[in-house]
């Protein structure tokens, strides 16, 4: 049984969004065999032959030579003979003439031989930054040798995204500064498991070199500050549970861990509220979901550290972020937790100023 299908503009590389129809090698009404080149498609990088996956007939052209067509849009209609899919005996790069009679698996969107440029070349630091900013490397253009994506490229992409999505960042900014109006209580919470193996190793190393080791509270406070404080200049206000009340302190992403530790020690018991109220429990309790105290925007519950049996992690702890859906949306809470987890899992970032 034959059927008419669209021949679509193929995606020839991860970064390709559109292609130019360079040359038609088949005319409407013309029969072709499997493996015949139907059309040549060009991108900035390459010219690619698009082969027929099976024998058939070209019905109608939907684009002319020179047309620029987005990936996935039809450029022609063709009718493919309904042959049983048979694996090709040789890779697509071998000469076609000898095997023109061999039927090939049908596909509406022919896939040319894999483009070796598909592998994204990016530096480890750029990959990390992209991951932290939830950016896809495939969407970023690299400026380094061989198109390598570097830190500067990710930062530029981040910049472009924030200018392109003014509304999103504005919402985030508003959420940061909006007054805590806990009139309607529509509380929700999100949780994340954090691999604290690296944090424990760092703590052990630092303990050997310092008179007073850093407490877990200090690392958590630092992670909150760095996760929430995108703008280093604006202080983040934290409260740490101390027998029912909250000792409050402020910090910016530019503060050192030592400074945060010192401020924790001197934290005052005022009742003004702030960004995140933190409750830390020890022992075997895995998760604690605190209620949001009056005057506070969010509350973070930190469970005990437990031995882990998954993957490379030796120890884990669970963070639960409670928020009021009236002024903090779910995706913001999830992103915030994600950033905190990333910071705690690679604690070098907690030390970097």
């Amino acid at each position: 049984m034959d059927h008419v299908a669209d021949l679509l503009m193929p995606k020839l590389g991860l970064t390709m969004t559109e292609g130019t129809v360079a040359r038609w090698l088949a005319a409407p009404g013309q029969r072709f065999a499997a493996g015949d080149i139907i059309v040549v498609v060009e991108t900035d990088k390459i010219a690619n032959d698009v082969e027929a996956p099976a024998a058939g007939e070209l019905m109608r052209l939907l684009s002319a030579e020179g047309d620029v067509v987005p990936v996935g849009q039809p450029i022609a209609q063709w009718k493919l003979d309904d042959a049983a899919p048979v694996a090709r005996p040789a890779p697509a790069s071998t000469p076609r003439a000898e095997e023109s009679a061999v039927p090939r698996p049908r596909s509406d969107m022919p896939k040319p031989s894999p483009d070796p440029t598909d592998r994204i070349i990016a530096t480890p630091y750029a990959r990390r930054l992209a991951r932290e900013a939830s950016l896809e490397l495939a969407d970023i253009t690299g400026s380094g040798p061989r198109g390598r994506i570097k830190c500067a490229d990710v930062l530029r992409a981040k910049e472009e995204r924030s200018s392109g999505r003014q509304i999103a960042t504005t919402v985030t900014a508003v959420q940061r500064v909006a007054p805590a109006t806990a009139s309607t209580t529509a509380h929700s919470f999100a949780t994340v498991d954090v691999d604290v193996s690296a944090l424990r190793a760092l703590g052990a190393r630092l303990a050997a070199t310092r008179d007073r080791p850093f407490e877990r509270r200090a690392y958590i406070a630092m992670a909150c500050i760095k996760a929430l404080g995108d703008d280093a200049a604006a202080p983040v206000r934290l409260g740490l549970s101390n027998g029912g009340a909250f000792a409050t302190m402020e910090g910016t992403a530019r503060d050192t861990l030592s400074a945060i530790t010192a401020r924790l020690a001197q934290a005052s018991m005022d009742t003004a509220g702030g960004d995140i109220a933190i409750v830390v429990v020890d022992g075997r309790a895995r998760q604690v979901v605190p209620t949001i105290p009056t005057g506070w925007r969010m509350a973070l519950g930190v469970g005990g550290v437990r031995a882990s049996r998954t993957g490379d992690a030796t120890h884990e702890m669970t963070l639960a972020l409670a928020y009021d859906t009236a002024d903090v949306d779910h995706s913001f809470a999830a992103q915030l937790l994600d950033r905190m987890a990333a910071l705690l899992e690679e604690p070098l970032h907690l030390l970097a100023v």
Partner: protein
Amino acid sequence: MSEVRFGQAINRALADAMAADENIVIFGEDVAAPGGPFGVTRGLLDRFGAERVRDTPISEAAIVGAAVGAAMSGLKPIVEIMFMDFVTLSMDALVNQAAKARFMFGGQYALPMVVRLPHGGGINAGPQHSQCLEAWLTHVPGLKVACPATVSDAYALTRAAIADPDPVILVENKSLYAVKGALPEPLPSVAIGTADIARPGRDATIVTYGAMRGMALAAADMLAKDGVETEVIDLRSLQPWDESAVLASLARTHRLVIAHEAVEAFGVGAEIAARMADVGFDELDGPIVRVGAPFMPVPFAKELEARYRPDAARIVEGVRRTLA
């Protein structure tokens, strides 16, 4: 604060240590009456006497072997091998005896000995008198290796090496002996294993040691003219080396160049590059680049040697490569 030469700072450290501890003895080829091939032990014979400052025959194996025995039996010997190239002859005493004693005798023997090894080229001394062989020694568990670059560190690291309970190799670049610099008062002290940030920067880190510190700073000056701010880390100690200082710098700059005068292949830079590719992987925003000598013996001809030794321009090239 006084201006002294690098060699004089070592001389001062030797003299201060000898005055403070009568168990310290010095021996080696031409170290007594002639005052050392580079003048580093000048005046010590007159001040401390022939019992404590001795000339030896030309036998590096005997010099270091005697130092091991002396250290085992209660003295604190400081010996000099005229050129690091000839440490080859004393490797058994160093590698199989000195480095192992603490571990093989249940910790009963500490070997407080110092071996001073002048290394490096640039003085037109040919392939057997110019080598930088420190990587051999850093590979041996039980040996510590320091390599000062400044007058202040020359004094401080010599004192630290003498004070250390274990065998310490002091690698001294011959081209530095005549360099003048400030010797601060009170006299400086430095712990073995701590690096020095010779120049802060944000765009790339150059890790170096010894005479290449000067080249790295010159390279940083050249790069600064183009707006590239390079951080220069002087390791000062090669074994143990200050991994956390290098990692912290990499976390600031995200790009790493390691420069040394020694042959690049299998050198000290290879170890630093390997560790940073491991513990610093997520910090890297460019390839780790090494700048070292080519895989060739040091040439004798002045023009050839000048091309052979890494210099500021080669370091600049390396930094540009990781910034690309």
